[in-house]
């Protein structure tokens, strides 16, 4: 391929857009669908067609393995465009019927369609409630574009925003547009992106840098992974526009080590963009506009998601945060001005340039414009990846998009913002999801993990979970975070094992506040949020653990017991075989568990074919 000049680019872009085959078979290659065998589905579709049209073609349809479609619980997913026919739970044996009936015969196979809660079959994905309420900006191409082919990205209008910025807008204009769009950083804190870029562009320095934070460490979050794996060129294009705006000639994408496929896809995408003249020196033939981009792997450290720790890690140092009195936009990588943004933030930029700042600012809520991606996981019926306008209520997200709580259970809490966020109870269900509303309620937006919890979740256990997560991940540099987490975990260990004391809660609150006030970085300052928010919204559960030595949700081991329901038990003996401490006694056909000897491992309950063994809270 030859490196394109600006005028060649427009011609090339038009060609690709006109040439694009609208008839497409899209097989989801997201992590959920891959694990359920979607690669074999793809191969089976090609096999069914006899592979006559060459690789990647089924009849006159272009067949692609694409990024995540979001509705992970229904995978493997296959979509047929342009109709938008949506097949769920597809296995290789279904491929011949899809080939003969749908691709050749043009008929929908009813049996393969999505079935709603009431058993109604829905043919087009756009009509499925999960998708109806969504609006995709950051995820606009994920699931539609072939992530390994730059031509396919260009055929969807890719790199036109970058070309438009270079041709029509000055760097100051770009910053002005981003400011006018009121885009706030999608990584968690919600700092206005345009202002960050302006500070970076104006700060004195010899070199400037652009860095994408792909160190998505929040447990329960996989938005950035999906984008990097499913649509890597959107990130590249957003970074290129950012580099032009702030005057950077070098950039990095810092990807967590746990995402090897993202690293591979990004490296491939960078190679393709370079060979087309969209990255490297004299981009699109414009003398002096150079932007060299490379991918760096993290080392498996949660704290590196913090901006200054990430920069230290990039420089080949320990990933410890720096003091926050100097922002990276002024002095970041190599002590130079650095525009460091989250992956999702960069991915939104091309659409703002394409459609204008007013378009973006018209979406969302007053102080949080645009859309936000969330990973909706936990106990919702539909779990997966979504993108909705800011300001949508938690209720709409969980019930309308997510389909409510699975197994007919009751909503108890939703955790937002990862380890820096908090748990919100049912009375907050009508809260609009935006940066400020969540923070006022004692949680935060974070990067976008939404973990839905039902009555089988113990909130004390959840708080303890986050504490032990953070204790393991704290870099250990400053005392309030390191020792605070250590002491809090010790107190929580006592509470969940039935040795909590009345004075513990006051000690917890005191420590939590000290950590907020005294920690060096944002992660330490927010580390006590899961504790404070559960204390605020679920205090009764704490007192049950401490006073009554009881875990109402039946989760905390020491406070619960396994009991056998004699009505349901058929005396099959399966539990006797699997019980490690052999603590189940049989007397005249009646099975009982010796509570003293039981280790609460749950093996009997998992093995029981009649669901006769359950874990009960409040038994003492």
């Amino acid at each position, binding site marked *: 391929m030859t490196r394109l000049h600006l005028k060649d680019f427009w011609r090339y872009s038009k060609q690709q857009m006109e040439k694009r085959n609208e008839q497409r078979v899209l097989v989801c290659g997201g992590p959920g669908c891959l694990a359920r065998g979607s690669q074999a589905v793809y191969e089976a579709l090609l096999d069914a067609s006899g592979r006559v049209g060459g690789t990647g073609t089924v009849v006159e349809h272009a067949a692609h393995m694409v990024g995540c479609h979001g509705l992970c619980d229904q995978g493997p997913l296959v979509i047929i465009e342009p109709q938008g026919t949506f097949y769920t739970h597809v296995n290789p044996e279904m491929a011949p019927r899809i080939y003969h009936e749908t691709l050749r015969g043009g008929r929908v196979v009813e049996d393969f369609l999505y079935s709603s809660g009431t058993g109604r079959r829905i043919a087009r994905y756009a009509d499925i409630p999960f998708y109806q309420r969504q609006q995709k900006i950051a995820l606009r191409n994920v699931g539609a574009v072939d992530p390994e082919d730059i031509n396919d990205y260009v055929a969807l209008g890719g790199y036109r925003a970058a070309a438009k910025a270079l041709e029509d807008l000055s760097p100051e204009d770009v910053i002005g547009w981003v400011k006018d769009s009121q885009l706030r950083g999608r990584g968690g804190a919600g700092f206005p992106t345009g202002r960050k870029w302006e500070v970076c562009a104006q700060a004195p320095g010899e070199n400037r840098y652009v860095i994408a934070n792909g160190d998505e460490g929040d447990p329960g979050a996989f938005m950035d992974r999906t984008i990097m794996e499913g649509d890597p060129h959107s990130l590249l294009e957003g970074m290129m526009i950012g580099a032009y705006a702030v005057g950077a000639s070098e950039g990095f994408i810092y990807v967590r080590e746990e995402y090897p496929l993202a690293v591979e896809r990004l490296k491939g995408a960078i190679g393709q963009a370079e060979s087309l003249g969209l990255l490297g020196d004299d981009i699109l033939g414009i003398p002096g506009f150079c932007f060299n981009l490379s991918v760096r792997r993290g080392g498996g*450290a949660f704290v590196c998601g913090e901006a200054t720790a990430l920069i230290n890690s990039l420089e080949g140092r320990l990933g410890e945060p720096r003091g926050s009195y100097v922002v990276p936009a002024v002095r970041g990588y190599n002590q130079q001005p650095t525009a460091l943004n989250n992956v999702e933030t960069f991915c939104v930029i091309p659409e703002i340039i394409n459609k204008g700042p007013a378009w973006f600012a018209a979406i969302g809520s007053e102080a949080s414009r645009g859309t936000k991606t969330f990973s909706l996981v936990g106990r919702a019926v539909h779990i997966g990846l979504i993108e909705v306008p800011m300001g949508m209520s938690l209720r709409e997200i969980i019930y309308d998009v997510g389909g409510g709580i699975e197994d007919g259970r009751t909503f108890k809490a939703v955790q937002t913002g990862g380890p820096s966020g908090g748990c919100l109870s049912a009375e907050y269900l009508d809260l609009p999801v935006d940066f400020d509303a969540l923070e006022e309620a004692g949680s935060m937006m974070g990067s976008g993990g939404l973990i839905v919890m039902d009555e089988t979740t113990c909130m004390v256990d959840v708080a303890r979970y986050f504490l032990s997560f953070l204790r393991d991940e704290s870099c250990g540099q400053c005392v309030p975070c390191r020792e605070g987490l250590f002491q809090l975990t010790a107190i929580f260990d006592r509470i969940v094992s039935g040795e909590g004391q009345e004075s513990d809660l006051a000690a917890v609150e005191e420590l939590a506040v000290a950590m907020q006030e005294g920690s060096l970085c944002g992660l330490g300052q927010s580390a006590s949020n899961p504790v404070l928010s559960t204390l605020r919204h679920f205090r009764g559960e704490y007192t049950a653990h401490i006073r009554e030595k009881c875990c109402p949700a039946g989760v905390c081991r020491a406070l619960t017991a396994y009991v056998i329901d004699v009505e349901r038990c058929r005396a099959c003996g399966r539990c006797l075989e699997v019980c490690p401490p052999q603590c189940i006694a049989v007397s005249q056909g009646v099975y009982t568990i010796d509570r003293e000897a039981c280790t609460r491992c749950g093996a009997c309950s998992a093995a029981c074919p009649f669901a006769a063994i359950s874990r009960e809270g409040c038994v003492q």
Partner: protein
Amino acid sequence: MKELTELRSIVDKYGENPEYILEALHDIQSRYRHVPEPALDIIAERMKVKKSRVFSLVSFYKALSFEPQGEKNIRVCMGTACHLKGASQVKEEIEAVLDVAAGETTADGRYSLHEVNCVGACSMAPVVIIGDSYEGQATRDRVRTLLDNDGSEEESR
């Protein structure tokens, strides 16, 4: 000797810039399943940094280890979604089957068991990754079967 030459050639790819210590260590870890002691000296010398800095990186980052890892890594996701859906029980089952605690390597050197903090596959919770293969909706029974079969498969080969 051969190891030293090989280590040098891995490190040489990255030149003198100490920014690439972590990248070089990643390559070494994936080649040897740990970071051998001589690597510290080679990197320190080549990138003109103190050996203590290289050492500190190996001890700081979870992806790197001084202890040799098993032929296959088993990673049990301990992310929030997996925690809610019973990751601890699945982990205990694997510990029982392999007779190791998380963080350890089996006596025969075949498996290392790790707890990891979210692998970004939350829709499949709880998730176990055996080698490169993701297992979603993992249960005690499922992991026991997988590990039993994993052994027999390799013996018959």
